């Protein structure tokens, strides 16, 4: 991702609640496979000019540090920056609405017809493909944030804690997280 510091002191474009809602509704309806970050950037930075690249990266790093999905955290942060709390509400509702409606409908169809032989056969493939997709997303995220060998050690410790020692996620998060934060403590 490029970091460009805009040198022009142009005032930020004013966005209405409607514009925010529909911009995020469009992102929520067209971003697939956990790749919302790319769609967010092209909409918010390139198309609407609501943020510059530096602000976008800044908000993204906050999104990734806090619990919550990157896509919805970005919606909250960008909405807040543009229009305060009401902007956040407009943004997160737009972001989630299309997927939520589709998944409620898909769940109903699955419950009624999911045990048909053809359905079961397809779902095997869907699940397998989803594993490949999640792993690819993980690698793409890792490329950006893994910078030292010690980072790989923290990744491995977390995986061992959850998958081999079967510690609960919060225990692994607090334990390895505290260790990693202390490792990177201010000098």
């Amino acid at each position, binding site marked *: 991702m490029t970091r460009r510091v805009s040198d022009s002191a142009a005032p930020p474009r004013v966005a209405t609640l409607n514009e925010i809602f529909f911009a995020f509704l469009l992102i929520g309806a067209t971003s697939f*496979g956990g790749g919302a970050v790319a769609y967010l950037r092209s909409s918010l930075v390139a198309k609407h000019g609501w943020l510059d690249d530096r602000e976008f990266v800044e908000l993204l790093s906050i999104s990734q540090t806090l619990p919550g999905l990157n*896509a919805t955290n970005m919606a909250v942060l960008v909405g807040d920056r543009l229009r305060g709390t009401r902007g956040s509400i407009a943004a997160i509702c737009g972001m989630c609405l299309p997927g*939520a409606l589709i998944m409620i409908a898909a769940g109903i169809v699955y419950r009624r017809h999911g045990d048909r032989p053809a359905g079961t056969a397809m779902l095997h*493939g869907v699940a397998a493909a989803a594993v490949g997709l999640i792993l690819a997303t993980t690698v793409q995220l890792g490329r950006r944030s893994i910078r030292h060998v010690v*980072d790989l050690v923290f990744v491995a410790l977390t995986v061992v804690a959850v998958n081999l020692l079967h510690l609960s996620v919060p225990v692994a998060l607090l334990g390895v997280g505290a260790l990693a934060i202390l490792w990177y403590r201010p000098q």
Partner: protein
Amino acid sequence: MNQLPALVGVFAYLSLLTMGGGMAAFPELRVLVVDVHHWLTFPQLIHLYSVGQMAPGPNMMMVASIGEWVAGVPGAVAVLLAFFLPTALLTLGVGRLWIRLETWPWRTSIQRGLAPVSIGLILAGSISLAEGALTGWLTVVIAAAVFAVLLLSRVNPALLVLCGALVSLIAFSPR
């Protein structure tokens, strides 16, 4: 029996574990939904999760399906609020604070330290999903193919998931 309070409790808790992405909460999602509350079987959870990868938007919208499954449309609404409201409020509050903490030295430490841990949590979630989804050589080949294509090109991931569905429809269909 009214399941709404249990749904709200489970998904509010899970939402706080989604560090770095929804996948981070998957191991706990599996324990709570399958083993503790018996809302779904593990294969059903995997199916809903995987179908959710084809839906647009944030990749955990399948939580709405679980809510609908357990308690109808009110269940879906309750789960969505429980899953998104706590982290939204946290992000709103901390987001405002974070900008003001720009010069606080620990801010960078927290960001640098939590980055690899969140990658680890997503990876742990993927492994937990893979344990249930990779049941034979064909599923491993599909997963590996999707992984490779996504890293090497810019194909719409939803299309690849659809391809996986077609391949296994042909392979696993009863004759």
